[in-house]
């Protein structure tokens, strides 16, 4: 069963088509990385899923049921834009409110559990407004985790988190999906971090789904390459273009990329023996999600 199934979703704000015929499938148990530029329609889609804004047209199903039904809605944990806590109330009282909202019975135990998960045990008595940005983000995650949701919708949850916070976040999400059958829809611009956890991806542009794929499919689409740097880059580039089928020059990193099955050492030795080019730096790398995404965006423009 799919946790989320969206068919031909449209959401207009006046003349603006924020979501324009979006189709999206999030399999149960997946960590779905939802990627797109600012204003591409990610947050609008997430708000439609949560019932915060009514779609202009289209269908949204949560675990096979219409999202307006409300059966699955009580099992959704949400962190969209900001945690949604009352600033003058303590963290603990904010959590108590959400526990009451979700109808959690052993709420004190559950609140302690989620605060411990995000390492915020000591902040329970703090007023929410006195917490730092990173603390607020962790509390927002704890908010979303209350009651062990079956679907977690996280919009930019990594923003403001320190390295430890990001690691904790990865561990929590991995545990939730593996041990609790939770599905996670996560949007983020920090693609390097997303790449470490996502099992599925959806790339959105202009309110439309540009590409949906699994992590395996992304892996297959992101080839390994040899990168080299030489004292005379122009000569090296000309030599590589003559010798190898696919060669690219990365202006940002000032390096030549060779997409071939040869090892880095083989390439260096070939260039030296045949063209007398001394390679100053070399190695093997893989196209990252970020590079793949940027290329995909360039292709479309």
């Amino acid at each position, binding site marked *: 069963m799919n946790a989320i199934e969206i068919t031909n979703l449209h959401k207009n704000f006046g003349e603006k088509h924020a979501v324009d015929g979006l189709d999206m499938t999030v*399999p149960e*148990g997946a960590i779905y990385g939802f990627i797109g530029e600012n204003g591409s329609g990610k947050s609008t889609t997430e708000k439609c899923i*949560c019932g915060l804004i009514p779609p202009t047209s289209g269908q949204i199903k949560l675990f096979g049921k219409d999202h307006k039904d409300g*059966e699955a809605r*009580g099992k959704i944990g949400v962190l969209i834009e900001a945690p*949604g*806590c009352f600033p003058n109330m303590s963290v603990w009282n904010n959590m108590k*409110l*959400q526990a009451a909202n979700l109808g959690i019975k052993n709420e004190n135990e559950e609140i302690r559990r989620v605060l411990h998960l995000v390492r915020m045990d000591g902040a329970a008595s703090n007023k929410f407004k006195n917490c730092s940005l990173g603390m607020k983000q962790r509390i927002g995650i704890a908010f979303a985790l209350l009651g062990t949701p079956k679907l977690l919708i996280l919009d930019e949850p990594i923003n403001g988190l320190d390295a430890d916070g990001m690691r904790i976040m990865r561990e929590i999400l991995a545990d939730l999906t593996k041990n609790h059958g939770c599905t996670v829809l996560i949007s983020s611009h920090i693609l390097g971090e997303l790449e470490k956890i996502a099992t599925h991806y959806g790339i959105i542009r202009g309110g439309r789904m540009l590409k949906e794929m699994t992590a395996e499919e992304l892996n297959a689409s992101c080839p390994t390459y040899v990168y080299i740097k030489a004292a005379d880059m122009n000569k090296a580039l000309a030599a590589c273009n003559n010798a190898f089928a696919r060669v690219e020059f990365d202006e940002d990193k000032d390096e030549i990329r060779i997409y071939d099955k040869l090892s880095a050492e083989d390439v260096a030795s070939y260039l030296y023996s045949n063209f007398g080019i001394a390679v100053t730096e070399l190695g093997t790398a893989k196209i990252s999600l970020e590079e793949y995404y940027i290329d995909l965006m360039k292709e479309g423009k």
Partner: protein
Amino acid sequence: MENANVLQFEKPSFFERLKGMLGVDFYRLFHTPLFYIFIAIAAFIPALVLMGGAQGENAMYTNAWQIIAADSPLYVISNMGQYANMNMVFIFGGIMVSIFIGHDYQSGYVKQLFTTHAKKQDYMISKTLLGAFSMLCMCVTYMIGGMISGAAAGLPFQINAGALLCAILGKMIMSLGWASLYTFINIIFRRKFGISIALCFVLGTGIPVIGAAALVGNSPALNIFLYGSSVYACLSANFISVLVCLACSVVWAAIYNILGTIVLYRRDVY
């Protein structure tokens, strides 16, 4: 990714849903100073009213209970002081409801509420009941404050007990209708609760009804409005006036709840 266990979701009943929403609202009500400040204000209003009232031969109040309700329905008023009875609670109640709902939107907590609660009427009903409860508590503290102020001013307390009971009961019943109106206004203006407060003040003081009364005269037909029924609960009230208050309050509560639910379904809630 296929999960061996098929997820089962329980469809919560109306009462289970409402219990969750009311749980949130009342927990917040009792854990923030707003409610306590307003019930304290309600207790102080009668003293302020008495201090502002004329003394001696021109005394506005000749009986302590007149601080709670006028002798007879006053659709047309000739003196600002004639506002000053338990109806004041409905003005301050509007301000309280506006701040309470405004904070829901300003903090972003509505995201959590509307994600969990697919049925938008839950929000309307819960906020109406919360507003009604708050105004009811304010009525009680106003009454206590009125009695203390009256005693301190040395005013007599003689009254027809039945009529007084009907007047107080009528005013308290009107809390439901007023709360639904204020909830409706606030889901229209949401974060802009300054506008909501101003509008609650205009409607709570009964300016539109007083204006209408200036045109049509002291007509009981004005009892179809919340302000009209609120002043109908006066010191000459009887069982019929309680029933009129009940009918008016419940009907308007139903109307505003239905309208509010439609608005919430059609508009973006966050």
